[in-house]
Structures are given as C-alpha cells and as structure tokens.
C-alpha cells in the first residue's frame, strides 16, 4: 500500500481560494482608489504619472501574488486513502499532514456555493468525535460528487472492516453501494412562503417601519410652513405614507425571497440512525447528525404561528454539529404542529409529546406578574423623568408587559414520565422542551426567602447543547411538585 493514488482538489479551488484571499483586500483598495481617483493619470507629462504607476503596480503585484499563492496552495493540497485513514497533506511553506481514521469520522457535511454548483462540485467538511473546537477537523474545498461518494464508500468499508475483521478479502465490500436514504419530510412551497411572512424578524421589521413612520410627524415642522404650503404638505403626507407602505411591501418581499433562497427544497432523510438535513437554492447546505447526539427537542411556537397552529422544531445537539457553529439545529423550520408531532414520532419513537401538564399554582400569579419588576420600573421611571411629559407615554408598556406575563403564567407547565421530562414555558414564543432523563446533566431547585414561606420553588434543568449548554426552567411551581421532579431525577430512586 505504499504507492497510493493521490487526489487533488478540483481546479476551481484556485478561484475560491483566490476570491476568499482577495476579499479582505478589496475594501482598502477601493478606498485608496476612490480617494486618489481624481489625481490618477496615465499621461506621462502629468506630475501624478509616477504615483499612478506605483499604485497600479503594487495592486497588480498583489493580485499576481495572491494568484500564485492560491495556485501553490492548490498544487500542494492532496488527499488519499491509506490504512483506513483519510490522509490530507497541505501547506504553503510548512508542510502539514493530517490523518483522520475513518472510524473516527462522525459526520461529513456537504456545502455547495454557486461556484460549486456550476461545475457540479461539493465542499466537504469532516467532523470527528473528539472535535470540541466547533470547527471541522478537515475540509476539502471542492471535489466532484463522485469523489465525495468515494470517501463515503471508503469510510463505510473501513467501518465494516472494524466489525468483522476476519472476513476474507474486502474486495466485495468495495462494490457495496451506499443504501438509499429514507425520506422523512419535504417542505412545501406554501410552508416556505408562510414561514417567511410569520417569522419573528418580520414582526420586528414591521414594528421598526411603523416606528420610523411615526417619526415623520416630528421631523416635519408643520407649523412653520403652514398656510400656502398646506396643499403640498398634504400631498407630502400621502407621499410619505405611500413610501412607508412600499417599504413594508418591499421588506416583506425581500424577507420572503431570503427565506425562499435559504430554505428552498428543505428536506430531511434518515439512514442508519443518522438524520440528513439539506436546504438551499443558490448555496446548498447539507448536514448530517447522528441521532444519539441529540440531547433535547424544542418545539417553538411564536404567537402568530401559534394562532394558526404552526410551529418550529429545533434540536439541541452535543458538540458543534451546526454549520454556523450554532448550538441548535433547526429540524423543522415551519410546519403544522400536528405534522411535527407525527414526524417526531417516527424519528424519535422513545419520546412522547405530552398534552397534560402540571400547572403553576394560583398563588404564584403575583410572582409571574411582578418579578422582575425592576426591568420595567427603572427604564419607565428614567424615560418619564428625562423626557417629561412625553416620556409618560412609556407607561403604555405596563399593560402589554402584564398581559405578556399573565400569558407566561398561563402557558407554563411540566410533565414527567418514567424516562422523559417535558417543560413548557413562554417568553414571547411558547417553547416545549422534551428531554430524556439520561440527557439531563444536573438539576437545581432554588427558592428565595419569600418563596419559601409560600412553598413555591423554581427548578433549573441543564442539558448539553453545543459548546455552552441549555437551561430549561420551571418557574414558581408548588414546591411539592418540584421536589417530585428532583426525586424523579435521583439515580437510585
């Protein structure tokens, strides 16, 4: 096995590397160019001629340098398969070698940018178990799909070998084709558009547009130009309203388009206890997630979606599985809750979606409404004082705050079965967190002096999620119930 066939990345890597290197250089160059543009000249008689030559010379030199670097980098990067390992060698000046044993490889993530799509290529990110940094262990910038498949085949071959090592020649195994994945879910276009129009960022956008819109009243000094200008101003107001409406429409279209591009063809497939998520129109992203890495499931319903019975499902996963180093992976971006429950049932038969919960006792309502009150009182007091009398308008927040808090009180609940804990809570969106007992890292019950007198307590449940972990809380429940939860969690109980 000494002479191995070495594979090089696709030449398009050259361009990708070049673009990514030059990216950081474009803005300073543009600034330089714009600031000196008027004085640049190619007329030898002008006094800036030499300067112009130097500038263009330096730029050309840098571009050539980057191009050469990219070329060397591409030439030097090779990978091959040997001894059940994926071996990568690269390095511009210092030669680096990275050997990744196939059985240690956890996931292969594929991404396709526009560059890749034109030439039917993929970018492969390799993640291993011991990978705690959140970034991928190895990265192949651009290879053909066939080559990517080859890696997967080699990987399966190596993994099979480990299991039954005494088998005769492994030649037969080579023929083995990657088995077909079972399709779990595909997003429809209707869902895609509804997703974009009901996302919370849309709500924020509307709010900000209206806020800006209302500011126009103050910006325009009506009193000063009153009189003969009246008609023009009237026209102006109509004009401004029209612009604001147009802006909203435009923002909505942009949001829909963005969501469409990002989530286009969103689908989930399953094979060998692994989930494969892929999405994207221009840039296709795929993500592989082993089921055993999943620490918890969260069903999130923002108020608008809740009314229409839609929700979003995210999962917490151990280690940096996400493509953008997120702690959570979006499993179902937008789906009818009933459908979501069905899909969860097929993917995770061990989990149950509960509908009966222990609720918050009446005596805790006061706590929900009033704590933490300083969040509300201090800013309002400050605004009211410094912007008196207009600042008093901030008092409008009080009833909204109270309604929200009351809603939180109504929503909160939890339920336990033998091996599973379900916690429901609301900040603005309603979240249902489903955790199995053996995924809980620690549990804490806390109680203030005043809560103790009323027999109320709050529990915190820690699970692993990405690098940081995630904490679910059951706030202000009867102490008796909380103690039951702790008792449930106790290993020897």
């Amino acid at each position: 096995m000494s002479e191995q066939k070495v594979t090089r990345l696709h030449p398009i890597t050259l361009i990708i590397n070049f673009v990514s290197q030059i990216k950081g250089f474009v803005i300073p160059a543009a600034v330089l160019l714009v600031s000196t543009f008027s004085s640049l000249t190619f007329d030898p008689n002008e006094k800036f001629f030499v300067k112009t030559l130097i500038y263009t010379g330096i730029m050309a030199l840098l571009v050539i340098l980057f191009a050469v670097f990219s070329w060397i980098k591409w030439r030097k990067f090779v990978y091959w398969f040997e001894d059940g390992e994926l071996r990568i060698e690269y390095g511009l000046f210092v030669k680096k070698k990275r050997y990744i044993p196939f059985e240690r490889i956890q996931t292969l993530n594929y991404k396709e940018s526009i560059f890749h799509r034109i030439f039917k290529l993929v970018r492969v990110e390799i993640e291993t178990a011991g990978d705690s940094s959140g970034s991928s262990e190895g990265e192949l910038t651009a290879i053909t799909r066939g080559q990517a498949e080859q890696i997967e085949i080699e990987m399966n071959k190596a993994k099979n070998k480990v299991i039954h090592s005494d088998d005769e020649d492994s030649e037969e195994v080579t023929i083995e084709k990657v088995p077909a994945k079972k399709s779990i879910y595909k997003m429809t276009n209707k869902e895609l558009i509804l997703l974009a129009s009901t996302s919370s960022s849309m709500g924020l956008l509307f709010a900000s547009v209206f806020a800006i819109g209302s500011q126009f009243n103050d910006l325009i000094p009506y009193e000063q130009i009153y009189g003969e200008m009246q008609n023009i101003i009237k026209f102006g107001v109509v004009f401004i309203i029209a612009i604001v409406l147009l802006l909203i429409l435009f923002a909505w279209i942009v949001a829909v388009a963005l969501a469409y591009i990002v989530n286009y063809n969103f689908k989930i497939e399953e094979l060998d206890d692994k989930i494969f998520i892929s999405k994207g129109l221009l840039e296709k992203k795929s993500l592989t997630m082993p089921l055993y890495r999943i620490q918890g499931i969260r069903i999130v319903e923002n108020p608008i979606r809740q009314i229409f019975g839609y929700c979003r499902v995210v999962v917490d996963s151990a280690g940096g599985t996400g493509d953008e180093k997120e702690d959570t992976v979006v499993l179902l971006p937008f789906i009818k809750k009933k459908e979501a429950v069905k899909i969860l049932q097929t993917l995770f038969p061990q989990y149950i979606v509960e509908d009966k919960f222990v609720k918050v006792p009446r005596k805790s309502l006061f706590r929900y409404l009033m704590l933490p009150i300083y969040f509300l009182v201090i800013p309002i007091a400050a605004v009211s004082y410094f912007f008196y009398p207009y600042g008093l308008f901030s008092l409008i927040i009080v009833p909204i705050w109270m309604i929200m808090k009351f809603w939180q009180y109504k929503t909160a609940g939890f339920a336990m079965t033998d091996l599973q804990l379900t916690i429901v809570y609301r900040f603005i969106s309603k979240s249902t967190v489903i955790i199995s007992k053996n995924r809980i890292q620690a549990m804490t019950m806390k109680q203030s002096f005043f809560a103790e007198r009323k027999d109320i307590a709050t529990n915190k449940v820690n699970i692993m999620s990405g690098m940081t972990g995630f904490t679910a809380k059951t706030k202000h429940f009867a102490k008796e119930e909380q103690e039951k939860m702790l008792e449930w969690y106790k290993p020897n109980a």
Partner: protein
Amino acid sequence: MSIELKNKIDPKGLTVWRIHAMITSFITLIITAGVFVCTYYFDWYSWIQYALLALWVVSAILGIVVFPKIRWSRWRYEVREQEIEIQSGLFIVERTLVPMIRVQHVDTIQGPILKKYNLSEMNISTAATRHTIPALKAEEADELRMRISKLARVAEEDV
C-alpha cells in the same frame, strides 16, 4: 428541602471569604478616595462623595461581616454513591443534584489565600455545567476528589 445535607464547608473558609471581601472593599475604598480628590480639585458636587462614602461603609459591613456568615451557614454538600448534592445561596437558596454518571471530571484549585489556610476549592464538571465546593481542607479535598472520580467511573448508564 426535606432532609438537610450532611457536610458543611470548613469554618476557615469563612475567614478566607472575609479576606477576599476586605480586598475588594479596599479597592472600592481607593476609588472612593479618588472621587474625594476629584471633588476637591474639580469642584464636583460634594454630595456625590458623601453618598459614595456612605455606600462604601454599608457595602463593606454587609460584604465583610454579614453576607459571608449567611453564605457559609447555607453552604452544604453531600457526596453519595450515586449522586452529589450541593446547597448554596445568599437570599436565594439553590440545591443542585448531580448524578455520578454525569460527572466528567473533578479538579481542586488552591489560590495563595486558600493555601495559607490549608484549604482547597473543588470544581465538579459535567458536560454542560460546573459546580463548586468552595472551601475544603486540602487533604479532605484530595480524598473526596479521588472518591468522586472512582464513583463516577463505577456508576453505569442505567437507561
């Protein structure tokens, strides 16, 4: 909180906390003094300095005398075969349960002040959390660390 936990932390831990609080108080005192100097030279409102001084006196008394005492009396722990329980808090009492299977590693730390009193701080880490027992006799801490790591290895996945 049906049953009180068995172990309390070392009484000398209280002294260490007080020393820590004194050091922070000293730093805030220097800042307060700085304000006094500024008031003198730059004609700041004089009420600022007195308010600050009063604040310093109150926080120093609470921070050095009162709070450590409450915290110390609250802090309890118990290491059992299957789990570790820790209770802590000042106004809000927290009681945390960590099963042995979840313990990933245990380490002890000894700063200069802790060392002077022959104490150690013990940290227990799970995959997502970190729990502290702040002041144990050094030998006791070492012993406990060994014990926990042994128990953690023995404890098996029961699900």
